[in-house]
């Protein structure tokens, strides 16, 4: 498979004003050197705690934010060399769905107008009747009906609003859709519906997804590959197969997984493993490995220099000095946790 999106050493620093006149120049290192490749047709899951920079990374990929440094290629096109007009034309090929369905839709536009805009901007359909038909087809594809056309967003439920957002993102038949926690604001039952809808649409339209979530249990259901982000860096990238086998090489990945609440707390056999300490400030990331302050395996080398993302086995990348130790020691716990997922898998 060839890659649809590729980044090289991508960085985004946000300036923080401090002091009375903003004299001291500090920066939040939201994304701090990310090399990422998303292949055509796959679903790449991106996980991490709040504030680790995963949403910022997603926006950089669509150039909704300007990176501080680095390169982005979209289907071989250098995204950063494009001017405003070229970029707007290219936007036909990318879509985005946000976490908050209510705020994603313009409250003063009807559903019809919301879905018509992408077609108008990219002049995809000339004839008004055809336009209407395409919009209705799209609405039905996401599980809504013609009568929703004249409605305003506030008249729909959260799940329905999210369906409209999805319809808006894919009505131009894009190649790539960024899903920024599209299910986190929804009820569990609606979450499942939306996930299934996304899977179906991907099969029908051959979409490539970047699915951002803080919830590994959602990601492992929908993703082909998963990247784990910590403090602006990707610390591990793996296949879903490795994950299901419990082959995890980075301690942070393991703890992220283990920290998800137990499905049947009364059946819990071992003690809940929780990660101690706070996420360090992204304004002043720790020296060496960013995770060493919270890592049980941290040695001297982890404090001194930062580990590179290296391939530990085929298609499995990890940025850690102790991958084997992590894998062996945490595997029993990880496996036990994974059993829980198997029991709920469809």
């Amino acid at each position, binding site marked *: 498979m060839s890659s649809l999106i590729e980044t090289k050493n991508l960085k985004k620093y946000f300036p923080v004003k401090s002091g009375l006149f903003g004299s001291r120049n500090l920066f939040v290192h939201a994304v701090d050197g990310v090399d990422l490749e998303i292949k055509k047709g796959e679903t790449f899951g991106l996980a991490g705690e709040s504030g680790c920079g995963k949403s910022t990374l997603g926006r950089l990929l669509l150039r909704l934010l300007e990176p501080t440094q680095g390169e982005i290629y979209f289907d071989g096109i250098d995204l950063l060399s494009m001017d405003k007009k070229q970029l*707007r034309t290219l936007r036909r090929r990318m879509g985005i769905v*946000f976490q908050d369905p209510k705020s994603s839709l*313009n*409250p*003063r536009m009807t559903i019809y107008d919301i879905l018509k805009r992408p077609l108008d901007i990219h002049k995809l359909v000339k004839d008004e009747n055809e336009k209407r038909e395409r919009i209705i087809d799209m609405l039905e594809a996401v599980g809504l009906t013609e009568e929703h056309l004249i409605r305003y967003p506030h008249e729909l439920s959260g799940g329905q609003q999210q369906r409209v957002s999805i319809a808006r993102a894919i009505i131009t038949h894009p190649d790539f859709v960024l899903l920024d926690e599209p299910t986190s604001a929804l009820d569990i039952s609606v979450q499942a519906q939306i996930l299934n809808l996304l899977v179906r649409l991907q099969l029908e339209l051959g979409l490539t997804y970047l699915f951002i979530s803080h919830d590994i249990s959602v990601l492992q259901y929908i993703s082909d590959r998963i990247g784990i982000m910590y403090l602006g860096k990707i610390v591990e990238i793996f296949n879903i197969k490795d994950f299901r086998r419990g082959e995890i090489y980075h301690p942070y990945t393991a703890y992220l997984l283990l920290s998800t609440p137990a499905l049947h707390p009364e059946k819990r056999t071992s003690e809940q493993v929780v990660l101690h300490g706070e996420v360090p400030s992204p304004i002043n990331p720790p020296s060496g490995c960013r995770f060493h302050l919270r890592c049980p395996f941290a040695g001297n080398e982890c404090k001194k220099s930062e580990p590179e993302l290296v391939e530990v086995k085929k298609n499995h990348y990890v940025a850690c000095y102790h991958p084997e130790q992590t894998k062996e020691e945490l595997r029993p716990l990880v496996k036990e946790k994974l059993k829980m997922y198997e029991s709920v898998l469809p």
Partner: protein
Amino acid sequence: MVESNVNMKKVRSESTWYLTWLRFKRNKLALVGLGIIIVIVLIAIFAPVLAPYSPDEQHLKDRLQPPSSKYLFGTDEFGRDLFSRVLYGSRTALLVGIVVVAISATIGVTLGLISGYFGGWVDEIIMRTVDIVWSFPALILALAIVVILGPGLINAMIAIALVGWASYARVVRAETLSVKEELFVEAARSIGESDLRILVSYIFPNVLSSILVLITYNIPSAIITASSLSFLGLGAQPPSPDWGLTIATARRYLTLAPWYSIFPGLAIMLTVLGFNFVGDGLRDAVQPERVG
């Protein structure tokens, strides 16, 4: 889909404006205000039908008459019927309100949108200009501009508008700053909308309700300022039946003919009150959708 069955019965699609009207309707005082405004507008339109005399018709034998069945509000020093003049005065008042608001809202809203959306040095220049305009008392600044332009109703309106745009600019800028953080603006960019289109179709409709509230407060204050300028001899010129001008001339006969100044004064008060009631009601009706 299970979800979509909920909306099966045919209900009319409710725009947010319709919901705002439902909330507005519940406010009694606002409805009274709306009633006053409608009456004044009707008076302005049908003044020639309603007025018993022409506003300029002099009855030199009946000068400074107290209110009677012949002259409902009495007469002035030329024997002109004050009732007719007060009715006709509503035309000047509304004209001032509409023209001033049209000019100042157009300037202020445009600058406020640009300022809030683009930020940077554009924002800095516009907002510092607003600061300068606001550092003068409104009437004094308007006075200074009229002195430069020369007295007269049209110049007075221009002067008031040149002072009034600043509040639109500031409110619209603040609203724009908050609306542009909404995800639907980012979504608009993600589907390839241009900046102009985002401003016109996405941000403007969402700050419009605040602008409407501001307009209903701005109309009465424009009327008062215009009346004040007329009172000072810099606005409407005789023989205009303008309320402010009438009060100014009535001042000389305050002890001799108190009704002369009372009725135009009452007219100003009622008009201002009506608009303010509506403004309050509108403000309360518009805000809940921000939260809920």
